[in-house]
């Protein structure tokens, strides 16, 4: 058990640095590959200039392969991706990047894969062949592939074109699909940033900002698509999913306070990173399966401070990161001054901290409803939170939150009067008793895919509601993988 955990962590720790290395190596390869192909256009293969460029290109390729294994260089929608990482170049790299993208376009391919066995002779042949194909006006992935095959280039493979996917989102399905992509991009981005922070690296927040902006836009347009994803829980990815959920809940709450778009972006950013300090906690405590002793708690209670220090070290010193630092410090402070950690820095809580605290507690507690030994139902979580309004939580903000998540928050498992089980996906503002659900089965048989149902829809003939909620269910009773229904 211990070894599997540590190996998982090692991989995670590597991910952040991988991205940085990818960017550097990617830029180097793009530049050198472009030079090599251009040189092949002018000189024959035995020319000294060509040999020098070939050697340099192979050297970069070899180094990258040694570190990363198989490499891919692919163009899509005007971007170049190296091993799946988008390469953002400045004007100095622009000519090479443009050249390769135009070349790929002419040849009707999206790029190349370089296998670990790539030899310098193959790179040479490929450069000459690609150049010849371009001159001849050869068009089509299959034709190029044939040429590669006949030239016995086995370790470098051309890649077919990738379908473009940026048409207008018109229907519900597309919006839901876009919400999913944004949600998981947010989660993956958080992972990358977390890895970089835990390794003490400087983080470029531009990508995170992009994804937060997209979350804000989607929430402002229709929050239901993202809110339903907060039902997704996972042990392995708990911290990341939880942080993404807190981010979504916080933005939803912020919209109800009429925060500006820019403020919502700051709030979302702070919420997404509120738990970043946990990356600095010793693994033996983070992964401890049993209850904590006093010493463990003492260490655990340092995570808000570690969050402050990590953000201070790894992010630019601007309003965004300052907000994140304050929220990280204060997200376990209570309104009445109690809570942790113990510091000399205590004054009235920041608005964003008050918001994130509410969302954090709610999501953490309701996450337990699927996995905890003694899960607390959403209704009971809210009831408990209300009991603490005024001294733990801000009363007015809690009320705003309560109206946002409503009676049956996403992820609540219910039994319908039809005898079928369903997972709540979102609320109907006009009828809080009749949420939107996914019917998942009848207890004996579980569907492959959940069936979407709006409990507020009446039968057009009888005018009656076909189904109603009978009761809230303890999810443990069902032993079902709910995630697949959330994501289907």
């Amino acid at each position, binding site marked *: 058990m211990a070894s599997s955990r540590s190996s998982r962590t090692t991989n995670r720790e590597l991910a952040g640095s991988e991205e940085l290395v990818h960017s550097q190596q990617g830029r180097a390869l793009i530049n050198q590959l472009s030079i090599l192909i251009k040189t092949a256009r002018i000189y024959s293969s035995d020319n000294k200039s060509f040999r020098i460029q070939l050697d340099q290109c192979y050297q970069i390729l070899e180094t990258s392969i040694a570190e990363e294994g198989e490499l891919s260089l692919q163009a899509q929608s005007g971007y170049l991706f190296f091993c799946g990482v988008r390469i953002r170049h*400045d*004007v100095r790299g622009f000519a090479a990047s443009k050249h390769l993208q135009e070349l790929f376009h002419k040849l009707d391919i999206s790029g190349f894969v370089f296998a670990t066995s790539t030899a310098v002779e193959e790179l040479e042949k490929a450069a000459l062949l690609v150049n010849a194909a371009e001159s001849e006006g050869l068009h089509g992935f299959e034709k190029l592939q044939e040429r590669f095959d006949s030239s016995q280039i086995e370790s470098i493979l051309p890649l077919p074109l990738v379908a473009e996917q940026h048409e207008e989102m018109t229907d519900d399905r597309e919006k839901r*699909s876009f919400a999913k992509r944004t949600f998981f991009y947010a989660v993956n981005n958080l992972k990358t940033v977390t890895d970089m922070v835990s390794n003490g690296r400087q983080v470029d927040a531009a990508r995170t900002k992009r994804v937060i902006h997209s979350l804000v836009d989607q929430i402002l347009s229709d929050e239901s698509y993202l809110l339903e994803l907060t039902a997704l829980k996972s042990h392995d990815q708990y911290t990341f999913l939880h942080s993404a959920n807190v981010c979504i809940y916080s933005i939803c709450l912020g919209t109800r306070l009429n925060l500006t778009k820019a403020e919502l972006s700051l709030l979302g950013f702070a919420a997404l990173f509120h738990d970043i300090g946990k990356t600095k906690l010793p693994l033996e405590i983070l992964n401890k399966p049993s209850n904590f002793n006093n010493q463990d708690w003492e260490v*655990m209670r340092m995570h808000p401070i570690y969050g402050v220090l990590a953000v201070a070290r790894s992010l630019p010193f601007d309003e965004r990161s300052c907000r994140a630092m304050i929220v990280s410090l204060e997200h376990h402070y209570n309104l009445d001054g109690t809570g942790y950690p113990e*510091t*000399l820095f205590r004054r009235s809580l920041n608005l964003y901290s008050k918001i994130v605290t509410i969302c954090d507690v709610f999501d*953490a507690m309701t996450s337990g409803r699927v996995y905890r030994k003694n899960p607390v139902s959403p209704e009971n979580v809210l009831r*408990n939170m209300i009991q603490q309004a005024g001294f733990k939580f801000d009363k007015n903000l809690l009320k705003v939150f309560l109206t946002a998540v409503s009676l049956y928050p996403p992820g609540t498992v219910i039994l319908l009067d039809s005898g079928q089980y369903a997972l709540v996906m979102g609320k109907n503002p006009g009828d809080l008793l009749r949420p939107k659900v996914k019917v998942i089965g009848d207890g004996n048989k579980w569907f492959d895919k959940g069936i979407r149902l709006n409990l507020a829809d009446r039968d057009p003939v009888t005018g009656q509601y076909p189904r109603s909620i009978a*009761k809230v269910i303890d999810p443990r009773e069902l032993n079902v*993988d709910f995630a697949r229904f959330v994501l289907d």
Partner: protein
Amino acid sequence: MQRRGQLNYSLGEITAIRELFLSLAKGIKASRQYPPEHPVSTQFKAVFFDKLKSFFEQGEVIAVNVHYDTLTAQEEVVFRGSAGSDNVAHLLHRDGVRYLEISRQIAAPEATELFDAFLACAERSEQCEDIVNLFWQADFEHIKYEVVDVFELGEIRELVAGYTPETESSRVRPESALLTESVDESASVEDSARLFPDQMNEAYQHMLDQLGDGAGYSHEELAALEQLVENDRQLSIKDEVIELLLQLCRSDWTSRDLALAVEALQSTFDKTIQDADFDASSVMFNRVRELLREGEVRSPTARKKLTEFVARCGDKIRIKMLTEVLNRREELDLEPARRYLSELGWESLNHLLWMLGELSFYPARKMVCELLVEKGLDRIDLLGGAVFDSRWYLVRNVVWVLGETGDDRAISFLRKAASHNEIRVRAEVVKALAKLDNEAVVDLQLSMLRDQSEKIRSMVANELGNGRRRGAFAGLQEIVTSKEFPDAPLSEMRQIMEAMVTCGGAAAVEVVQKIVRRSTLFDKTRLRRLQEVAVNALQLSDDDQALTLLEKIASDSKSHVCQIARKALSQLQFKRESKVGVQS
């Protein structure tokens, strides 16, 4: 968004769009040299807006498709960029913008924001700001854009891999446990799962009632929420964070945690310098010193680490960072940087001198020189050491600083600089010596009258004259009465003679008298020239004997210097009368 590719632009409209983007590119290129509020920048923004207005006199919408290095309107290339930071097509395309549309209702502030967004991401670095983020933050009303976002390209299958939950449900998350401390654990799902919808609704309404007016929000609740937001907007969040970091650094923690805290403080401090936020740098530096001075840091480890932090604030690494920032552009508000640097102790003096040699722009060099005058007073030895530097321009600046200190200890270093190969250094030495109110500088000045450069000799003579240093008289007399003196260039001869007359009083008049009396059978022209110069110089004397001598020579019509004496006399009389007039 509906693309307007089908718009039918007239030739005039296409030309107007071309001019618009060209003005944008030019504006970006020029504005990168200046701060945002600089007149040059403002002027380019105005030109850009004029071009926009000019288009909208004929057209309704500017719609361009963005390609790798071109912008096209209706298939016509309206902008083609090169490999420069002013390539607006590249700046858009790089971050995924594929279409841009500007409608005619656009006003100047929005156009300025568009301009500023381009400018902010035009840095030559991969880490510079993302234009899509800037567009988003600007929240344009009359500008639309279409973006291909990276996360739109990802396959959901790949992204969601690994998010399927484990089937076991026995583990308890520590995070959940942490959050449930104060929540009633006994309230398990069993208590509520059997609640029927009506009861649920009742419970929900009850909860809302508990939080106030269940039917909606009361005026008080709404006012309280608005107040929360308003108060938050008044916060100075950066100041709060600085205070927070300082508090963390003085907590009673383990050595490791304290090291982390001070490291974070250091990192933040460095960023304030890199961002040219020198006021924040000053606040951090001063607050730490204050905490240490007032004994508010109890832990010896914390005290030690914070003392080291203070030392690092003015070390070479930080001064180098600051130098890089000041070298970014000439037009920069230097006052905050000056305030910060002035807080540093004498330990930083050497680094400041190093900085002086590295600064590219005159205003920054001037600022540092002035600062060194203040800081160097107590450490002339450190300051003066820089005259041995191999960079002549640094030596020249240091000579200026030494002169401004007015401190006698500077003389020995100025003596060294007086023999510098570079004439510009020696010229600065002459000026510096004039600022030192000490007769000891006279020897050095007199020795510089023998400088290889006529310019320097002339400058020294001028300074000696202006300075009216009595102590210089003997030396000047020696030069004036030397055999070689009549061979000196006329202007130099005049300046040295005048200096002698100014410094020497009655004794100098006697020297002139002797020169005038001198006669020779050989090379009369040479002597005459000397005598003319000597008589003419008398007009600068304050001594009454000069007046008497001039009257005597002027009345001797046979004398070849009679005319010169008359002119000098009238000048001297006029000067004296003016002086009396002013006094009365």
